[in-house]
């Protein structure tokens, strides 16, 4: 199965870092879309189907949390897995994100192997399960 990915961050460097990590994860990637904030991400999501969203939290115009909330309100986007990529270490923030339906939290800086493990689990389920297809 090939995947379509959306990377949301106001930093072009971070978008490139995540893009590189996605490529290194060994997944079959069909398309990678990028957005500079939550509002741009919603616009992309309205015109492109994606299999997974990687988003920062603190962005101008629309934050990552506002993006997740907007996706949850939108029926068709509510099941799209979201992975938050952030340097914010707060446990309460991580718990809040879980309650909002965020599938995983990846703290920066991250190692490629840690990134790959999280992406595989989100897209394909825990090891031993088969969700591909």
């Amino acid at each position, binding site marked *: 199965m090939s995947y379509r990915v959306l990377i949301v961050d106001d930093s072009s460097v971070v978008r490139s870092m995540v893009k590189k990590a996605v490529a290194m994860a060994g997944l079959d990637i069909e398309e990678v879309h990028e957005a500079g904030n939550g509002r741009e991400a919603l616009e992309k999501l309205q015109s492109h189907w994606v299999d997974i969203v990687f988003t920062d939290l603190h*962005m101008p115009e629309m934050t990552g949390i506002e993006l997740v909330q907007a996706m949850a309100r939108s029926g068709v986007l509510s099941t799209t897995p979201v992975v938050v990529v952030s340097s914010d270490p707060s446990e309460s923030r991580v718990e809040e994100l879980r309650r909002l339906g965020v599938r995983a939290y990846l703290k920066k*800086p991250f190692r490629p192997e840690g990134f790959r493990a999280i992406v595989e689990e989100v897209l394909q389920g825990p090891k031993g399960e088969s969700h591909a297809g």
Partner: protein
Amino acid sequence: MPAEMSPDRLAELVAETLEEAAFVFAEPADPPPPFHGDVLEARLRFAGPSRGELALRASAGFAEGLAANLLGMEPSDPEIGTRSRDALGEIVNMLAGAVVLELFGPAAQTSIGVPAVRGAAGAAPGSCLAHLATEEGERLDVWLQPSPGSSP
């Protein structure tokens, strides 16, 4: 100060962040080497039980090398110049995560702002100031200071 942190501990967090994120190796330096060329300054506000600001100064050349390492690009790549400020801001963002965790602990409600990068001017004003030097002899100044009443 938002909470107590020694300059030595701040320098350790800088070194750990640079190594983990970009394979850049740096150590505390006293006295620090001179800056080479233009100097950039990245600042970022953070909040938890109290508020503060974190800042990092480095040469434009260091920022370009940092961008190359973060992105896996050749230092001669023409795109590096446009990415260097963003790279410096991103390192401060990552460093802020470590600093906030150290200052307030994982259970605290915290927030990290968006980094701003500009040309450096004047003396570093921080009350917690650390100097480092990279393996290549690039100087890094990092400091923390209170920012009362301002939101991240």
